[in-house]
């Protein structure tokens, strides 16, 4: 674009970028700064990172908050537990989502569009309310126990709500569409002639699947898995509604540091470490996207 559009061009570049720098990038610097500050009982509840003493700038950088997280096993356990919960739920979602994505990708039109619509539709209804729906199903006097008791499958109601099992169910349930969509986009491009050739050469369906379909769908598997894994690490709503006192997730720890303990410096340190933990999965996601997995 040229000539008279020069100022227009600058305006169009500047406005969204200034917005994102101001309200997305800058906040991380503030978090970093506060994570290095000393907690205080004041408003705001932290000491300034630098001040002027006798005309000289003095820095009060302090790594106490990070040291404190290292010493108190709660934080390390919460990170490990979040990673474990994210990994297991990603695998469970993959186990349920892969056959669904495969089935949809192999379906003829118009069934394919309808099924795809059915996958996306729950995503547009409230996330919070879909998590809430599981309370009524999983609680001791809930729908699931009523059905199983009446059918005579169990004699004692199962205790699922407020355990990690309920958290896994909630996570897989709400994040399933994020996994199915990139997988579908990948599987729908699979060349049928490869499978036909493999069949003609005498390979069984199972062997063709493991030697052709699965390796070719790897970018879709990785992209979909990371889209579940990364946000689940910091999940708060699902453990808060479905988990119990033993459910330990770093998102809930951060929430409690801020809302219950009012310890802003430690909450900031928790957030900074969470960002570092997420760097590797985010890089895996970006490389999968560059390899042509569509999102």
């Amino acid at each position, binding site marked *: 674009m040229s000539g008279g*559009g020069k100022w*227009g*061009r600058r305006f*169009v*570049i500047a*406005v*969204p*970028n200034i*917005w*994102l720098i101001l*309200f*997305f990038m*800058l*906040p*991380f610097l*503030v*978090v970093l700064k*506060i994570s290095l500050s000393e907690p205080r009982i004041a408003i705001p509840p932290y000491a300034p990172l630098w001040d002027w003493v006798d005309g000289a700038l003095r820095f009060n950088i302090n790594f106490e908050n990070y040291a404190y997280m290292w010493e108190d096993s709660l934080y390390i356990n919460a990170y490990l537990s979040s990673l474990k919960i994210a990994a297991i739920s990603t695998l469970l979602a993959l186990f*349920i*989502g892969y*056959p*669904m994505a495969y*089935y*949809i990708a192999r379906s003829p039109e118009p069934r394919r569009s309808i*099924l795809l619509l*059915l*996958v996306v539709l*729950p995503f*547009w*209804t*409230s996330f*919070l*309310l879909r998590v*809430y*729906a*599981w*309370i*009524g*199903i999983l*609680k001791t*006097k809930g*729908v699931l126990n*009523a059905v199983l008791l009446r059918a005579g499958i169990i004699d004692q109601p199962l205790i699922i709500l407020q355990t990690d099992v309920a958290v896994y169910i909630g996570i897989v*349930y709400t994040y*399933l569409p994020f996994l199915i969509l990139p997988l579908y986009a990948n599987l729908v491009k699979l060349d049928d002639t490869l499978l036909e050739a493999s069949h003609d050469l005498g390979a069984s369906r199972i062997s063709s699947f493991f030697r052709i379909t699965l390796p070719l769908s790897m970018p879709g598997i990785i992209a979909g898995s990371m889209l579940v894994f990364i*946000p689940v690490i*910091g*999940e*708060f709503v699902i453990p*808060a*509604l479905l988990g119990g006192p033993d459910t330990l997730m770093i*998102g809930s720890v*951060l*929430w409690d540091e801020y*809302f219950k303990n009012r310890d802003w410096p430690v*909450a*900031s340190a928790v*957030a900074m470490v969470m960002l570092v933990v997420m760097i590797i999965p*985010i890089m895996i996601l*970006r490389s999968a996207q560059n390899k042509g997995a569509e999102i």
Partner: protein
Amino acid sequence: MRLRFTPVMAVLGFLFLYGPIASLVIYSFNESKLVTVWGGWSLKWYGELFANQQIMDAAWLSLRIAAISASVAVVLGTMMAMVLVRFRRVRGKSLMTGMVTAPLVMPDVIIGLSLLLLFVAMQGLIGWPGGRGFSTILIAHITFGMAFVAVVVQSRLSDMDDAVEEAALDLGASPARVFFDITLPMITPALIAGWLLAFTLSLDDLVIASFVSGPGASTLPMVIFSKVRLGVSPDINALASLIVLVVSIGIITAALLMRKKP
């Protein structure tokens, strides 16, 4: 008869996706407050829902925030998408791409905490935003909304042939004219999809709003969360059913409209 693995898994998968939603809708008509007791069909909880002033106020606040933030997000997100796809010789595009995709996977607790701390720091430095509530939630929702809009519009722009736009530019049309007369009509479906996405995400956000809100401004998810944390609440079932109804009508209408087009 031999059952094939994938169709069976697909059926079970869809049952898993829709079972909980169906149970919410069914129990919203249950006269009894207990999940295990069927007290007969009733619209009682819908009556209680509309009589609950706290929920109605929160819904009105959330709808206003969602509508305004989605509209601003569409404008900013479209500008960002144009810069990323159509503008040539722009420095720092990979950094911009990073800024647009990062909010999509960033956990809400981090976005919420970091924005809150920014607002507090700005308040100390320049005396703005002067209290937290409507405007701070609006800024937070515009920020993640524009990232989603940018991604949707970006993919539409990349799929689109820019030959017509190039021709118009060669014939002497101003870039602004080309955008409003050619590009905009062609990306309108993406703009609508982006607006709806930003609107829905804003209406649904609990965590970020809880961080950046102040006393007195409770959005609908904040009210729902404080109610359901104590257990099942039938008027929330009624609210959920209404949302499912509205969303289903909207999505199915949109799908039918899209299909009629060549």
